[in-house]
């Protein structure tokens, strides 16, 4: 009578199940940390999004303010130039009248010139382009520095818009990170599934296949997470 044929017993038949258990623990810890990172990224993106909206509101208000101020100042400047020219025209007219010997008419025209000049002088007082030394003309017959005024007027709006753009970019960056973490978490669920399968199947080859497949996914997700962190 011969001995029954015996199959070789593996040295440690539980090793793949143990590996699956340890990897499940590692994946759980990793998923927990990932959830915390995702929450952090989500909070940062929400804050940047809020800042971006707040700055957009402030920027639109500043644009409206600059528009109102600019309209007022340039309407004033237009009236001022008109009154200055009207005064000059009346003075020239008075000179012509005087040259023709129409002295009484010339006197009346000079009164009109004085009235227009008085309006222009008051306009100079009211206009920031003539009263503020930053923009006022250096010479009596030169023009105010309207470009410098416009630059100063639009500077706060430009600053707000650039800050709003920066906040929007920041939101985009954190939002992409947050979404990427969610994707990693989702893929990790597959790793969990594979490790779970490894715990339940009996065939050693299948246990090894599921453990190694889950491990590949876990390593891939670790690398992806590191890439997200440094991006």
């Amino acid at each position, binding site marked *: 009578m011969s001995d029954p044929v015996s199959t070789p017993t593996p040295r440690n038949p539980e090793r793949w199940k143990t590996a699956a*258990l340890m990897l499940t*623990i590692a994946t*759980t*810890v990793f998923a*927990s*940390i990932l*959830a*915390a990172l995702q*929450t*952090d990224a989500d*909070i940062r993106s*929400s*804050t940047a999004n*809020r800042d971006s*909206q*707040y700055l957009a*509101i*402030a920027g*639109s*208000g500043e644009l*409206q*303010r600059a528009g*109102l*101020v600019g*309209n*007022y100042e340039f*309407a*004033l400047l237009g*009236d001022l130039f008109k*009154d200055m020219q009207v005064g000059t025209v009346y003075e020239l007219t008075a000179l012509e009248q005087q040259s023709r010997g129409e002295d009484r008419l010339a*006197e*009346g025209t000079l*009164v*009109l010139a*004085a*009235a*227009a*000049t*008085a*309006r222009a*002088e*008051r*306009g100079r*007082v*009211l206009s920031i382009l003539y*009263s503020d030394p930053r923009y006022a003309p250096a010479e009596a017959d030169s023009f105010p520095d309207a470009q410098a005024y416009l630059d100063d007027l639009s500077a706060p709006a430009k600053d707000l818009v650039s800050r709003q753009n920066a906040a929007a970019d920041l939101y985009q960056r954190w939002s992409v990170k947050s979404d990427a973490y969610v994707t990693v978490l989702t893929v990790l669920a597959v790793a969990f599934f594979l490790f779970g399968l490894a715990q339940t199947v009996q065939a050693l080859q299948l246990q090894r296949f599921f453990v190694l497949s889950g491990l590949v996914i876990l390593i891939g997700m670790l690398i992806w997470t590191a890439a997200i962190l440094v991006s």
Partner: protein
Amino acid sequence: MQTQNRLDSPRWELATAIVIAIVSLTTALAVWWTSTIASRAADYSRQGLIDAIKVQAGANEDWRKAYEEAASAARFSTYAAEAEALVASADPAAQARGENIRTYLLPNLQLPAAPLATDPVYALPNGAYDIARRIEDLQAGSDLAALDPEASFTRGDRMASQQRWLVIGSVLLAISLFWLAVAQVSHARRRALTFLVGLAFFGAGVSWLLIVGAVYALFGGGAL
């Protein structure tokens, strides 16, 4: 051998199950707390944005009104200058025209310019108008001045910061839950070890949550 039997007894399994239930309940409470804090943070941010829109709309209206008055005041002021020049002239007809401008035109021009052109507090020594002060007065008189979006944002940021720290506590509890589950399916010494690890994580998680809660309740976040 006796210790091993005790660790594998149904009594021990029941005890582990009860601890798992307690940790599950604590985790649920921690997640609920974190979620409440996150919700309040979002509420504060939302309130801040609503307030910001209201404040900006009010400011826009104040600016519009102030510059509407300023344009009318400028018109009034230049006509007043013209009237003065006409009255000061030697021409009787011009004097009469100047007087009539003062009597009939200027009061009508002054109406839409009020109070910028009528209230002496807005009159500057050089004859111009203090538009900035008029805007300040308009904004001070508005109910919207009491709204403070930045304060809402600060409160929201503090809540978000607390949420961030609370999540770490929930993570510790989740890890504890896992180890306790391992303890439930393990045997003998391995069961005792994993049970203790689970309890340690549970203790750390609960302590962490209590410390974070206390720091935010007492110091409003402090260095956190």
